[in-house]
């Protein structure tokens, strides 16, 4: 028996109020793979990523983590994923440092947090409450999680929103490094990635979708 892939998505689909959001989708992801999820606005990229976190329950199909249905090994699976959505969960009233400490694994060293923030260009902003950060800086606080997390699978929903070019280059470098270390990345973005070996998957809206 061949070894089962890290993540396998088997004809996954999702209905909202009896209305299918996207056509059943199947693919699998190995360690070291990067998959870019493509699709027009409203095609269901975010929905797919949230299905993969199991925050949403699929209407049909399943997701296998190392060969096991994720419903069977939910906590183990969730230890291995890192999800950054459109709203990344930065508390406006906490400082960047407090936010990152809070979002990182409990065992993260304080120095690791400070250096992750510095890497993301937030040196000098560690103690500023997040509500007085600019849009890009706010987003960078959330992205600093990529440097402190130990999860193997990254699920990133438009991570480059509001980030300047330098920042995008740095993030791409981080992602490359994560892949080299045996991680896997699923990323939805409308920009082209400057990473080699990106596999693209298109999410197609279902025929009956729409607001009719």
């Amino acid at each position, binding site marked *: 028996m061949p070894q089962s892939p890290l993540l396998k998505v088997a004809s996954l689909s999702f209905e909202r109020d009896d209305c299918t959001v996207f056509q059943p989708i199947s693919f699998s992801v190995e360690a070291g793979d990067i998959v870019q999820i493509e699709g027009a606005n409203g095609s269901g990229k975010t929905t797919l990523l*949230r299905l993969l*976190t199991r*925050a949403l329950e699929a209407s049909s199909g399943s997701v296998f983590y190392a060969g096991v249905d994720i419903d069977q090994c939910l*906590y183990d699976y969730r230890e291995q994923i890192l*999800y950054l959505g459109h*709203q990344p*969960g930065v508390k*406006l*009233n906490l400082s960047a440092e407090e936010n990152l400490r809070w979002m990182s694994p*409990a065992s993260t060293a304080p120095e690791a947090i400070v250096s992750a923030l510095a890497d993301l260009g937030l040196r000098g902003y560690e103690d500023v409450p997040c509500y007085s950060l600019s849009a890009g800086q706010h987003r960078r606080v959330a992205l600093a999680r990529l440097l402190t997390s130990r999860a193997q699978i990254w699920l990133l929903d438009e991570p480059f929103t509001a980030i300047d070019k330098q920042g995008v280059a740095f993030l791409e470098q981080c992602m490359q490094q994560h892949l080299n270390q045996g991680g896997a990345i699923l990323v939805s973005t409308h920009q082209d990635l400057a990473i080699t070996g990106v596999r693209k998957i298109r999410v197609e809206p279902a025929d009956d979708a729409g607001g009719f």
Partner: protein
Amino acid sequence: MSNAHNAGFTGYLQRDLLLAYRRRGEAASPLIFFLLVATLVPLGVSPEAGRLEPLAPGIIWVMALLATLLSTEGLFASDYQDGSLEQMIIAPQLLAMPVLGKVTAHWLVTGLPLTLVSPIIGIMLSLPSDGFIPMMASLALGTGCLSLVGAVGAALTVSLRKGGLLLSLLVVPLYMPVIIFGSATVQAGIDGLNWFAPLAILGAMLATAVALCPLAIAGALRLVSSN
């Protein structure tokens, strides 16, 4: 595994306490609400001690209930808006644990200070001195119930931006037993009767709520965030 669950509890407890500390002004507001409204009542009703005295236990309990209710409203709202609720849901833990952590933090910043400050209102409303100990005991237990039950409603309405007063419709009917036994405890204390009996019932309600509510809250959060 169980370690991770505990980490969820203490982690969220600490975070919410820190957040409350950062927003001290807001965290103090249930308290101030309690005090201010207690001053409104004599203005509206009558300033005479003789007329206020029989009302005191009831009014104190109604006001404590409202103060808790109002502060429960935002328990999950900001977490929902900034996406940290989603992160909580997909964390590798029993969802009930962080939920319990958050509710405990809520009680520590509302129910507890409210209990501690209640004697002042007792004095303002001429509560007879025998009522003070029963009042504080019943408030301590009762506000715990209120926080837990209120959190169920807060979870159900979290995705309705500004569910605010809808929440009160959902949970006030569920609060009625607490207020009945709460004010009965104080009244029994004043009348020199055995006030342990109603207090024990409040305790039993609290125990039930601690056992059941976190599960209901977790279920509600999962459900509402999957829309």
